């Protein structure tokens, strides 16, 4: 039980560091740590397939993509522009209002039963694969189309125009 609270504290701590770090590279590295704590959360929930996918896709693919883009931009200078103090206070105030609203609406629910794992092999690959390829077969195929179009779009957007447009 205390493991969950410790990991939850670490998640919140690293998430705050992500948005407050001055250097974008540090920010990305803190994001890696945040995603790692999320992986531990998935393992605690016995969602082993999601833990592995989170580890590979988020910490592997997405974060490498972020770092690579940042390396392309070469903005290691520390004089990154920050917003004015009024905007900062307004941003934190607005986010706090959102949090208070969500938590207050949670208070009226008052159901606080513990999360109990009824079926121990719920999050295993075997079980999830059966659900994915029976009920969710069409969304699965559509997501492959989504990935293909994203790849084409990324290549199209990131390539430089050789000649200026004539129109």
């Amino acid at each position, binding site marked *: 039980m205390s493991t969950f609270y410790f990991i939850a504290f670490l998640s919140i701590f690293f998430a705050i560091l992500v948005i407050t770090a001055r250097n974008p590279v540090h920010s990305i590295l803190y994001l890696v740590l945040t995603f790692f704590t999320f992986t531990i959360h998935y393992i605690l929930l*016995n969602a082993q397939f999601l833990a592995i996918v989170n580890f590979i896709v988020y910490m592997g693919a997405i974060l490498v993509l972020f770092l690579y883009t940042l390396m*392309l931009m070469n903005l290691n200078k520390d004089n990154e522009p920050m*917003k004015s103090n009024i905007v900062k206070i307004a941003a934190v105030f607005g986010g706090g209002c959102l949090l208070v609203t969500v938590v207050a609406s949670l208070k009226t629910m008052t159901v606080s039963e*513990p*999360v109990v794992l009824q079926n121990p092999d719920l999050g295993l690959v075997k079980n*999830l694969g059966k659900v994915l390829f029976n009920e969710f077969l069409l969304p699965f195929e559509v997501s492959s189309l989504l990935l293909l179009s994203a790849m084409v779009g990324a290549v199209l*957007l990131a390539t430089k125009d050789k000649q200026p447009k004539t129109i």
Partner: protein
Amino acid sequence: MESFTNAIQSVPLNHYILLSAIIFTIGVIGVLLRRNAIIIFMSVELMLNAVNLLLTAFSVYRGDAAGQVFVFFIMALAAAEVAIGLAIIVMIYRNTNSLDINVLNRLKW
């Protein structure tokens, strides 16, 4: 693995919702606070992850595997979104030579 799953036996569902709400709020604050386009993007990733964790917790709570399949789809969508978004950011950087989103105020009417 048995000891791991026993560790969560007594965590109330409310605390999972609370944790997700806090992480989501941090993401929202990050979007509002920063001017660097990449960090805004990372805050969006943080929000997506908070929702993923909440879906998994609900899935385990109800004993229904559909929630975890949704998380899988969200992860595929996040990968596509990151590829497109970073391509757009690279294009913006080529045109304006900065990542400051305040440079982009020409998009305003």
